[in-house]
C-alpha cells in the first residue's frame, strides 16, 4: 500500500517531465533514421527508401557518391559561408543601431526586421523571383540571387540575436571603462565587443544553418544551380541515394560537437574559477 502511494506520488511528480522527455525522443526519431540510413546498402534497389543491409560503404567511398551531390554540398557550404559573413556584419551593425541609437524611422526599421521572420517563405521567394525577373535578371538566376536571398532572411535572425545580447548588457560597464581612461574606441574593443561576441557567434552559427538548410526560397531563385537541399528534393523523385544521409549525419555530428565543446569549455572555466 505504502509503496503504491509512493509510486503514485512519484509518477505525479515526474509525469510532466516524463512526457516532455517523450516529446524530445519523438523529435529525435527521424534523426536516428538519418543516421541509420547513412549505413544502408541500397545498391540492390535504388528506388526503395528503406533499410536493406548494413554497410560502411557510404561513408568510406565518397568517390562512388551520386553525381552532383558533392558539388551541391560544396555550393551550399560556400553560399552559407558568404551569407553568414554578410548577414552577420550587417545584422550586428543594425543591432547596435537599434539598441544604442535613437533615430527617426527606428520603429519602421524594427517592423522591417521583424517581418521576414513572420512571412511565409513561399511568398518571400516568389516576391524575390518577381523582382529579379522584373529587373531583367530572370535569365541570370544562380549563385548571386541565392546569396542575396539568403542574406535577406538571415539578417533578421542576426539582428534579433545580437540585439538580445546587447540590450542585456549593463551600460554601466561602458561608463566604467570610460571612467577608467578608455577612449570610445578602447571601450568598444575592450569591453563592449568581447561581451557581445557570444551573441554574434551564436547569430553566425544560426545564419549558417538557416542558409545551408534553406529550400523553398532557394528553389525559386536558383536558376541552374543545385544546392544540397535541392539535390535531396530532386533525388526524391528519382530514388534517394543513401549518401545524402552521410552528409546529414556528418552535419549533425559537427553541429552537436560545436555546441558540446562550447558548453564544456564554459563549464570547465566555471569550475576552474570556482576552485
Amino acid at each position, binding site marked *: 500500500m505504502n509503496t503504491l502511494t509512493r509510486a503514485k506520488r512519484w509518477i505525479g511528480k515526474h509525469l510532466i517531465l516524463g512526457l516532455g522527455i517523450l516529446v524530445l525522443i519523438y523529435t529525435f526519431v527521424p534523426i536516428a533514421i538519418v543516421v541509420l540510413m547513412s549505413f544502408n546498402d541500397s545498391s540492390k534497389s535504388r528506388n526503395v527508401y528503406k533499410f536493406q543491409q548494413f554497410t560502411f560503404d557510404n561513408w568510406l567511398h565518397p568517390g562512388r557518391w551520386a553525381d552532383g551531390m558533392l558539388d551541391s554540398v560544396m555550393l551550399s557550404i560556400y553560399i552559407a559561408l558568404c551569407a553568414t559573413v554578410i548577414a552577420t556584419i550587417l545584422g550586428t551593425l543594425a543591432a547596435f543601431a537599434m539598441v544604442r541609437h535613437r533615430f527617426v524611422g527606428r520603429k519602421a526599421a524594427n517592423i522591417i526586421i521583424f517581418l521576414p521572420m513572420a512571412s511565409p517563405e513561399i511568398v518571400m521567394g516568389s516576391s524575390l523571383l518577381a523582382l529579379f525577373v522584373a529587373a531583367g535578371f530572370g535569365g541570370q538566376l544562380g549563385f548571386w540571387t541565392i546569396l542575396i536571398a539568403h542574406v535577406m532572411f538571415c539578417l533578421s535572425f542576426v539582428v534579433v540575436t545580437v540585439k538580445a545580447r546587447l540590450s542585456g548588457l549593463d551600460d554601466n560597464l561602458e*561608463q566604467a571603462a*570610460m571612467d577608467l581612461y578608455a577612449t570610445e574606441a578602447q571601450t568598444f574593443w575592450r569591453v563592449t565587443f568581447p561581451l557581445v561576441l557570444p551573441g554574434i557567434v551564436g547569430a553566425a552559427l544560426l545564419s549558417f544553418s538557416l542558409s545551408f538548410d534553406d529550400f523553398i526560397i532557394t528553389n525559386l531563385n536558383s536558376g541552374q544551380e543545385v544546392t544540397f537541399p535541392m539535390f535531396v528534393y530532386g533525388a526524391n523523385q528519382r530514388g534517394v541515394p543513401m549518401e545524402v544521409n552521410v552528409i546529414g549525419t556528418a552535419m549533425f555530428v559537427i553541429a552537436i560537437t560545436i555546441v558540446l565543446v562550447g558548453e564544456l569549455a564554459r563549464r570547465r572555466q566555471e569550475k576552474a574559477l570556482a576552485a
Partner: protein
Amino acid sequence: MSPAAEATTSTARAGSRDLRLSQLTKEYATFTAVKSLDLVVPQGQFFALLGPSGCGKTTTLRMVAGLDTPTSGTIHLGETEVTYEKPYKRPVNTVFQNYALFPHLDIADNVAFGLKRRGIKDVKKQVADMLELVELTSQAHKKPPQMSGGQQQRVALARALINKPEVLLLDEPLGALDLKLRRGMQLELKRIQTEVGLTFVHVTHDQEEAMTMADTVAVMNQGVIEQMGAPIELYENPRTTFVANFLGQSNLIAGEIEGRDGDQVKVRVQGALASVPGDRAHSESGKGWLGIRPEKVLIAEAGQPIDAPGDVITGGYVTDVSFVGVSTQYTVRMPWDQELMVFEQNTGARAMLPVGTKVDISWRPEYAFLLDASQDAKAGIEED
C-alpha cells in the same frame, strides 16, 4: 605614511586642487535634477552628498565624473575647468553603485584596466599592492561573478583607487550590501581614505553612513543643497525642517516667536515660554517650529522632578513604548494633540513607564532649535 599619501597631503595644504562646482544645473525634458548648485569640496576631504532618491545627488556625481553633461554651470578641479572634458580625460574615478566590474576580465585585469589604458606597461606590482590593500590577493584570478557582494565592492574600490585619482566618486557603494557588512565596509573605506589621503565624494541616502564616514556632509533635496557642514553641526543645528527630519528625527512644535532677548530668542509654545540660543534660531519673528531631538527630551511621571532648567510641560501621557535595548522610545501625546518622540537611555535609574502613564516633559534650552514655520513640518520624513 606612504610616499604617495605624503605627496597628496602636502599639496592638500596648498589647497590648490579643490573640487569646485559653480551654478551647476542639469535639466531634463520634464524636470530639473540639479539647480544652480554651488559647492567646494576641499582637497583630501571625505565628503558626503546625502539625500533621498531623486534629489539629484547621483546626477551631480555623474556630472563630476563626466558621464552626464551639465545644462549650465562649471566644474573645476583646482584651476582646471573640466565641465565638458571626456570622462577618460579627467583625473576622477568612480565606484559604481552596482560595481560595474567587467565580467569577462579577472580581478587582476579589472584592477589593472585603468593603468593599462593610460599606457602604463608594468602594472603587476601596483595591482598586487592594491589587491593587498583591499585584502583580495588570493582572489586575483577569479572572475567577478564568482565573488560575493562585499568582495566585488572591494574590487570596484581597488579598480578606481589604483589610478590615484584626484577625486574618487562613490555612488552608493555600500547600498547592495547587508547591514552588518555595510558597517564593516564603512570603517574600511574610512581607513583607506585616511591612508591614501585622496578626496572622496560619497553619495548616499543612508544618513548614519554619511555621518559615520564623512568630514563634511551636504544634505541635498530637490536639486539643491539644503545645508552643509560637519555631521555634528548638521545634526545639532539643522537649518531646515528637511534636514531636521532627514538627518535623525526631530520633534517640531508650532510656536509664536516673541523676539530676541539678548543672545536668546523667546518662543511661546502651547502656553509655555521657551528660549532658543540665538545661533540656533533660524527665524526671529512670526510663527516658527521649535525643534528638539527626541533624545534631548527629558521625561518623568507627572509631578516628579525633571533635571532641566527650562519650563516643564505637563499634561502628556504615554501612548506607545518600544524597548530597543540601549534605549527606550516613548511616544507621548501632548494636550494639544501632537505626538512627541522621547528617547531615554536605559540607565536603570527608573523603571520603564507603561502605556497610559501621565507624564511631564522638558528639555535643556541650549539643545532646542528654531525654524521658519513656512516650511513643511513633515519634509524629509522617510516613508518606508
